[in-house]
């Protein structure tokens, strides 16, 4: 069996224009890597949205980052003030990674 190490997986659903802000917060928390996944549309308490390239205003991405528990904590703490104002959905779980020193 390949040796794997547990790390934290943080996923944040975020408005496209705000994604760079998240990358900055992650970097401040010591996390240097992330990946943005593309979404199509969604529905929540504030109604529906869908990808919208014309203004980019209603498009969203999933911001995915893998980090050590300490850095994940620091990142989440930095996110808390934005949760309500930015309508973020934040998910946290554990994954096994192969080269743990990267994250």
């Amino acid at each position: 069996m390949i040796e794997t190490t547990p790390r934290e997986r943080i996923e944040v659903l975020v408005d496209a224009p705000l994604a760079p802000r998240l990358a900055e917060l992650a970097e401040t928390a010591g996390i240097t890597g992330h990946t943005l996944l593309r979404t199509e549309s969604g529905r929540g308490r504030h109604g529906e949205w869908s990808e919208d390239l014309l203004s980019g205003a209603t498009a969203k991405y999933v911001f995915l980052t893998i980090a050590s528990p300490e850095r994940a904590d620091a990142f989440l703490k930095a996110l808390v003030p934005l949760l309500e104002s930015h309508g973020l959905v934040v998910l946290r779980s554990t994954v096994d990674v192969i080269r743990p020193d990267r994250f």
Partner: protein
Amino acid sequence: MDQLTSTLLSAPVLFFALGVFAAAARSDLSIPETIAKGMSLYLMAAIGLKGGVEVAKAGVGPELLSALAVGLVLSAVIPFLVAPALAKIGGLDRTNTGAVAAHYGSVSVVTFVTASQVYGDTGFAIAGFMVAVLAMMETPAILSGLFLARRESGKLFSRELLREVFFNGSVVLLLGSFTIGMVIGEDGFEPISPLFRAGFTGVLCLFLLDMGLIAMRRILKTRSLTLRLASLAVLFPIVNGTLGVLAGTFIGLDTPSAAALGILSASASYIAVPAAMRMSLPQADAGLYLAMSLGVTFPFNIVLGIPLFRWMAETARAMT
């Protein structure tokens, strides 16, 4: 009312109506986002080039400077004019008031483009330099809107925001192709005129088809557009447009350009401003400002505003 009929029965407006109809009938007709984005870039490049080429040909007098100044003032001031109505009549909180107000101070490129097409087809030609005024009016309203929303909280403007205001994609593309048009002139424009001049009205048709779909779908899925706010979204273009026509006439613009300044003042942004608001005022309700600017004001201007401000400009001219 001949003007009204000729507007209503022009191909671009009919395609817009087709989009509205298809969305209302819940048809699955849709134009991919990237195609729409591509068409909107094309329209901006084309209108910029054509304006620049015309300025290269006709030259500009002092009216360019006064038009730019008046445009700047209108974009910056209109948010303050509409804000009280949004708060008192519309019942919006400060954040949403600022966000919506910014949209009305700014302009809609496609409304301008449609007007210049419809006017031009009947020999009522807007001056080329009005494209520069269009670009000028895009972003000052963003600052006014943010000031309205945040005047009591601490920091007002971030560095990214100022970059957004000065180097916003639409502004750069409009002014950039305007400048290119001035540099290359009529001769240099000739090899690219099949794409940018001959193809123009056709692309506008397809783009307005998409705008009709988007505008109607906005209305259908909005949750926050009250009757009062919808009425304001009709009232604002009338008031702001009148203001624009009068200002244009007052500073001595030719009649079509005064009408165009009316169109610009009446129109509300749905590209540059929503993105800036999403970034700077994320708590504001995007569904609301898009429903007002795209769902109500945009159709109003395309269908009724275009003939209305022409009539107004002609009347104002006749009276001076």
